């Protein structure tokens, strides 16, 4: 409610200042700058992925409309209503894609990557730079393994003749994995910078922002992937 208090101030009455006037008012530049930028970016990316989910749900159309199953009919009815309200006629060409098992392994690798990042934060807090080198390197490398795994899934699908135009489920799959992968590549750029600093013997204070901000970003990308993968699985 700090914001509310801030917004109800009467600036025409208040002259002079306290040292705690507003978050940046004391002229401090610190880790908050990078973190603020990152959180806003997370907001941007979340809107993007949410809109893709919305498009996905609307594109499902009549999929799952099975009069024999009451639950399925109900869920389908909800979707159908949403689509009808938005003026989108329900399509009936949705064909579920077979999720390759490799996606489960990739998900596991991404979880391990996030764990490594979390341990890196712990190492940083306790100032153990030797361990930080290992956890940080592991965090980035596991993410690279994840990306390689995703590419392999693409190649497997393409090898079996399943391309994006062959159905809406496939089209969304390629779109989602590509956008998620691009976000991961962006993260890896900052990982590279931070890791290079750590390997060159930087002080904990110099890399704290990089490690903390990257770690949170990694967790975010894990959440995005789990949500997206879940969406693929249930449809």
């Amino acid at each position: 409610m700090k914001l509310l208090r801030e917004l109800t101030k009467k600036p025409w009455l208040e002259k002079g200042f306290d040292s705690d006037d507003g978050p940046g008012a004391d002229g401090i530049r610190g880790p908050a700058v990078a973190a603020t930028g990152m959180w806003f970016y997370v907001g941007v990316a979340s809107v993007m992925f949410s809109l893709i989910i919305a498009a996905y749900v609307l594109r499902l159309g009549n999929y799952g409309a099975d009069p024999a199953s009451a639950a399925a009919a109900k869920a389908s009815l909800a979707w159908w209503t949403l689509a009808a309200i938005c003026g989108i006629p329900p399509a009936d060409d949705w064909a579920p894609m077979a999720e390759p098992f490799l996606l489960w392994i990739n998900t596991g690798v991404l979880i391990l990557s996030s764990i490594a990042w979390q341990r890196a934060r712990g190492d940083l807090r306790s100032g153990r730079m030797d361990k930080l080198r290992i956890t940080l390197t592991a965090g980035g490398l596991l993410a690279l393994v994840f990306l390689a795994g995703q590419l392999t899934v693409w190649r497997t699908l393409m090898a079996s003749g399943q391309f994006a135009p062959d159905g809406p489920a496939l089209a969304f799959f390629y779109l989602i994995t590509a956008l998620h992968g691009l976000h991961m590549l962006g993260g890896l750029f900052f990982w590279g910078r931070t890791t290079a600093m750590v390997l060159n013997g930087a002080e904990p204070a110099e890399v704290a922002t990089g490690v903390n901000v990257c770690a949170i970003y990694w967790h975010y990308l894990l959440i995005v992937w789990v949500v997206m993968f879940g969406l693929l699985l249930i449809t």
Partner: protein
Amino acid sequence: MTTYTTIAEDTRPLHHPKTWIGKYVWSQDHKVIAIQYSLTAVGVGLVALVLSGLMRMQLAFPGMLEFITPDAYYQFVTMHGMIMVIYLLTALLLGGFGNYMIPLMIGARDMVFPFVNMLSYWVYLLSVIVLMASFFVPGGPTGAGWTLYPPQAITEGTPGAGWGIIMMLTSLAIFIVAFTMGGLNYVTTVLQARTKGMTLMRMPCTIWGIFVATILGLLAFPALFVAAIMMTLDNTIGTSFFMPAIISNNVALDHSGGSPILFQHLFWFFGHPEVYIVALPAFGIVSDLIATHARKNIFGYRMMVWAIIIIGALSFIVWAHHMYVSGMNPYFGFFFATSTLIIAVPTAIKVYNWVLTLWRGDIHLRVPMLFAIGFIFTFIHGGLTGLFLGNVSVDVPLSDTYFVIGHFHMVMGVSPIMVVFGAIYHWYPKITGRMWDTMLGQAHFWITFLGVYAIYLPMHYLGFLGVPRRYYEMGETAFVPESVHLANVGITIAALTVGAAQLIFFYNLIYSYFKGRKADPNPWGATSLEWLTPDTPPAHGNWGPDLPKVYRWAYDYSVPGAAQDFIPQTTPPGPDETPHDH
């Protein structure tokens, strides 16, 4: 943890350039980037202005200019709209004014991520180059209308359905990347780099408008980004996100099941906030122009700030009022009509507050103030017609007529541009250190202000008559009376006059830059920080060795008992002023 340093001591982000190229080309100084953004935006805006002149020529004198074919006409319509809304107004108000004003008005030395800021400009320039290049690709630029609705945007028969639309969508995606880089900078700078004493509620309205508009942009542009990518995929590799089963020229296309309406939702989820991305900075800037030149504190500062925030939030739940004729469910339309009319409440509060600020003010009718007052007129007119169109039953018959053209040009074309002109006249002395010519400025104002009324008022009348928009020529249309043609000729003459009058503006700016008299550092007696820099124009780093300290809000004008009729934000409280009460 990182050692804390105050910004005053922290010179890290100040990369001091040595060469001319480092200073003016690959510059990381927010002021230079702002000028780069502004010049590029105005340059591309002039292209769009010429396109509108050509369209008007066709409408008034059909067939006179032979190169304006139906295809070319639609390409002009499309490029004019897209350039004006995105590449001119968004870039100029946020990339230009945002970049220049944020650090100066909040007392920072620069943006918090200067390198990303520089990158933002160059990526923006790339998007402009890609867009302009589409004039030269086979088939020319896209003629799908600025809304780019599928399926027609990418099916054969629409001008530029081959290369043009690809270039357009690519350019938009690049623009959004550029905007996101700039936008993250603006919001983070406002939140994290304000100088001592500059609380959120002491920020000038300009910063509030730019700040909230940037947040809107960050949350709205992803919708356009997603839509652009999905349509590109439909177009190039043959997916069916938006493309239904369709028969084109007796051939069934290889698409099925996609929904063009889905595109419309994504487009307008971006498109409506976009209106406020352009309007909110204008609202903020005009508040400061009015307060400064009326020598009065802005009436209802808190209400003004809250109204900006509330308008920003509401702008995300009104988008489907652009889609009343898309065949959506009537209850859905009812919801959006309601939310649209609700947004009129905070907007009206702002208008009343501007007028109340003028009430019994010590009004100085200098050129910036003329434009600010002109804005109040054009915005009220454009806003009121918006209330017509917000109602489903009124919108349906008017939707595809010139009434809509008149409405949105008044409210989001002319109005923000009035503020942009006012703002340029207002801050020009600080930016260049020179004064413009008053007579030329007044001539520019009166021709522009009266001229836009001559252009857009008759369009409302044409709309009531049912004259459809986006038509290359009317042909034999029984319901359109002869007077419509007369009106069209009149509108075109007014439009060309207003277009030509802008030469006065450019002449004034360029001539004054070299020959104008030296400007006073604070010629208007303004209170906000940008007028208090040690150098005019502000030097690299803005503030000399010490950052300014802020003791009061930005609107201490005509304070009873004060020596001058303004008290700068850096002036400590006097003996008879109540100091900070907590």
